[in-house]
């Protein structure tokens, strides 16, 4: 049915597509066909090569020689120029809708058309009527003259998609091209279930209009729900492809993860002795719809999920870096409300938050290692009214040696250190405050193997000494090595808990990719 036949060549045909970055092969001999009037899923873990493939189509990367690209049966020479995709009848919609919130729906949708169209007076009434018709065609109910910032959040991605469709139509009409190609890159990230269904309704109409849609996602359930065909990438290679319905969920999970997963029954969670040291109840805020959990003394609790599932925001919410809407936090015997929590108070309560974005939120790279480490305790280092640079260097130097920051020279700029040493310096900065709840976000991102072991050891030592540790990460291997218990997030909620022998990479991957259908959400 949707399979390409000799008479109707696929809208997009890729063959032998490879891309090398330094020592890693991001794409290796990938083939992909997207038929007109069909939705084709592109599935894979982070780093599987999905983004690289899209960037090649967008003309952002040049593939290795030997790659072939055909659009509607016509060969196109690679690499593409940046922006050439427009002429070829392609459009991209990325996670960030790139709409101007202060402008109206009509202005946002026609902004390209003004530039290319009549230079004279713009007839707003005609433009609005055209946009209204376009929105009606795809079943989107909103006022063309409303400002985008006034729309419901879920309407924005729909607008971006319709804008892309409109753009492709306008450009291809002139060239007599019929079938366009729409690339949707993680279009559902951050959307709730109901919004995802609305988005799917729009995609169905786009499909009915004859477009080929490349639906890029790592969300298995969505791919199962909306796509006709699917290609799974793993480590830059095609791990499998075919008709979505024929393959089914288990086969797809296996292709994504790379080995067969045995379905095991969840073992009873091993709760640590005594009452939990830190307990969070009914946490709600950006990205998190509802989460309650507790961490025991000496426990390292992991949190994971797909991108946009909300686990990554938990740390910022607990540290006062993001505003919580609802929820309470109890550490030992003191309970406080999370809304209105400032970073200052979070620190005073005994929370330390080591963010993933080291050089933007963790520390200031152009200042020295000593200054960065000393920042939270500057007032304690004053002697006789003077904060001597020597006192600061001595204090930080001792910490550098304790956490094995190399080189252990506090006068170096922090950005001059390697990622692993930056992270060790950050741990030193926060552990000197003796936090009772240590929240780590992607603690070994961009960290080499040797430093990773040291960071693990420091985290374990801190937990063993009686603190509670929360580790937020999309790296399942790391969580399996560190954590006694792991919570899986999906659409802002905790949907599964793994403990003890169940804390394995396979189980986590399985729960992340395939848990939603089994869980009441």
């Amino acid at each position, binding site marked *: 049915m949707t399979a390409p036949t000799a008479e109707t060549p696929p809208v997009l045909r890729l063959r032998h597509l490879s891309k090398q*970055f330094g020592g890693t092969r991001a794409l290796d001999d990938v083939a992909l066909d997207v038929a007109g009037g069909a939705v084709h899923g592109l599935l894979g873990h982070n780093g599987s090569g999905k983004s690289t493939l899209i960037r090649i189509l967008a003309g952002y990367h040049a593939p290795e020689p030997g790659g072939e690209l055909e659009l509607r049966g016509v060969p196109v020479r690679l690499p593409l120029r940046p922006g050439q995709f427009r002429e070829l009848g392609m459009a991209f919609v990325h996670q960030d809708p790139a709409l101007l919130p202060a402008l109206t729906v009509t202005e946002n949708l026609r902004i390209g058309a003004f530039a290319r169209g009549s230079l004279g007076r713009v007839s707003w009434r005609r433009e609005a009527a055209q946009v209204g018709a376009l929105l009606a065609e795809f079943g989107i109910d909103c006022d063309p003259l409303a400002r985008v910032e006034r729309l419901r959040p879920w309407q924005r991605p729909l607008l971006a998609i319709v804008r892309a469709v409109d753009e492709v139509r306008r450009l291809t009409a002139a060239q007599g091209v019929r079938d366009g190609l729409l690339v949707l890159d993680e279009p559902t990230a951050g959307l709730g279930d109901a919004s995802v269904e609305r988005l799917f309704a729009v995609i169905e109409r786009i499909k009915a209009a004859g477009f080929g849609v490349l639906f890029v996602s790592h969300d298995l359930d969505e791919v199962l729900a909306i796509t006709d065909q699917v290609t799974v990438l793993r480590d830059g290679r095609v791990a499998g492809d075919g008709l979505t319905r024929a393959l089914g969920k288990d086969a797809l999970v296996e292709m994504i993860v790379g080995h067969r997963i045995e379905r095991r029954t969840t073992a009873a969670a091993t709760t640590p002795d005594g009452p939990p040291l830190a307990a969070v109840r009914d946490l709600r805020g950006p990205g998190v719809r509802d989460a309650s959990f507790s961490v025991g003394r000496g426990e390292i609790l992991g949190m994971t999920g797909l991108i946009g599932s909300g686990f990554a925001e938990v740390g910022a919410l607990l540290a006062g870096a993001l505003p919580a809407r609802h929820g309470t936090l109890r550490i030992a015997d003191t309970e406080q409300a999370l809304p209105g929590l400032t970073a200052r108070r979070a620190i005073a309560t005994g929370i330390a938050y080591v963010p993933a974005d080291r050089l933007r*939120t963790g520390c200031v790279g152009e200042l020295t290692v000593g200054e960065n480490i000393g920042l939270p305790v500057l007032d304690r280092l004053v002697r006789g009214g003077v904060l001597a640079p020597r006192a600061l260097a001595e204090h930080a130097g001792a910490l550098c040696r304790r956490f094995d920051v190399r*080189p252990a020279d506090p006068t170096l700029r922090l950005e001059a250190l390697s990622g692993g040493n930056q992270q060790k310096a950050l741990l030193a900065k926060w552990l000197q405050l003796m936090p009772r709840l240590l929240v780590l976000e992607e603690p070994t991102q961009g960290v080499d193997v040797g430093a990773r072991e040291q960071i693990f050891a420091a985290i374990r030592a801190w937990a063993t000494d009686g603190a509670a540790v929360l580790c937020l990460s999309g790296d399942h291997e790391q969580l399996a090595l560190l954590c006694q218990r792991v919570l899986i997030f999906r659409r802002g909620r905790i949907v599964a808990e793994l403990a003890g022998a169940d804390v394995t990479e396979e189980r986590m991957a399985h729960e992340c990719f395939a848990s939603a259908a089994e869980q009441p959400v």
Partner: protein
Amino acid sequence: MNVSPPPPSNPSDAAARPASSGTAVGGRVGAAARGASVPPASGASLPPASGTSPAPTRGASLRRLIDRYALLLAWIATIALFGVLEPDTFLRAANFTSMFSSQAVLVVLTYALLVSLTAGEYDLSAAPVLTLSAMVLAILNAQLGVPVGVAILLALAAGGVAGVVNGILVVWVGIDSIIVTLGTGTLVSGVVLWISNSEMVSGISQTLVNWVIVPRLWGVSFGFVYALGLTVALWYVLDYTPLGLKLLFVGRGRRVARLSGLNVGRLRFGALVACSLLAAFAGVLYAGTSGAADPNSGDSFMLPAFAAAFLGSTAVRPGRFNAWGSFTAVYFLVTGITGLSLMGIQIFIQDLFYGMALIVGVTLSLLVRRREQRERDVAETPED
């Protein structure tokens, strides 16, 4: 147990620690001794563990030394140049004492900007506040007969009010400081024209004049002594107190500062108020220097002050706004202007010179920071 846990034990065993270099045996002592100044030219190799960054080389530390004193050398070179070109007039002691004495106002205004720039805020209202303060002082003292001491306090208070308004708009309302201070600065200029009737007000008490411009120490006026004292004070605050470092973090990484528990709002507010107070003090010095206040007196200081602040941030502590660097920068610029005017070059050269100095200063300070970043970027791979 409800106390916080003790510090964790060393995560690595002794063998994993870096071998101490020859100069830094015993770690603590060595690190402390070299902690203050230039990073060590460590030729001793660290263990070949993965992930260690290269230690700075001897060439890097030499280059850093040149960076620090380039502006001082440029100043000396300028003096030498004009000494050769205009030996009779330029090299006279009187010329130097007058240069040092006359620029105290500019030095103090530059420091006002230094405080706000360190906290990451641009204060374009500093020069109008200088004028306001001088004018308030002149009107109170010369026209209304208020004792000069009281008049000075009220002039400073006027500056403080301007700073509080800036602080409220920038920190509480959350408007960009450039826009806010462009507005308040223009508003303040309007107030000055209004209260002064757009005319110069003279006749300020001779006591103030005596305490500012009459030569005291080796022929240099007290105004210069105040400026020098302020340099030391600012040097102390920025380099030797937690406050200085906190302001720096607020300016360079507001998010980092907030997450590290600093009260970022209060620090920014305080920086803007301090900036206005210092600008008002510059106004007091101005009134003392000329014995009068002119409704346009601050205008000519605005650009030189920004030029000196940015040029100064390329010297002494390159990459940071700092007191001694700005001090050097002010006198470098003034020496250039004085020399050129002694050669009989027309007055427009001032604008050319200061305008160029601002652009060069900003460019250089950007290049200093960018070069340091480039050293880092080389090591990092661009792709995932």
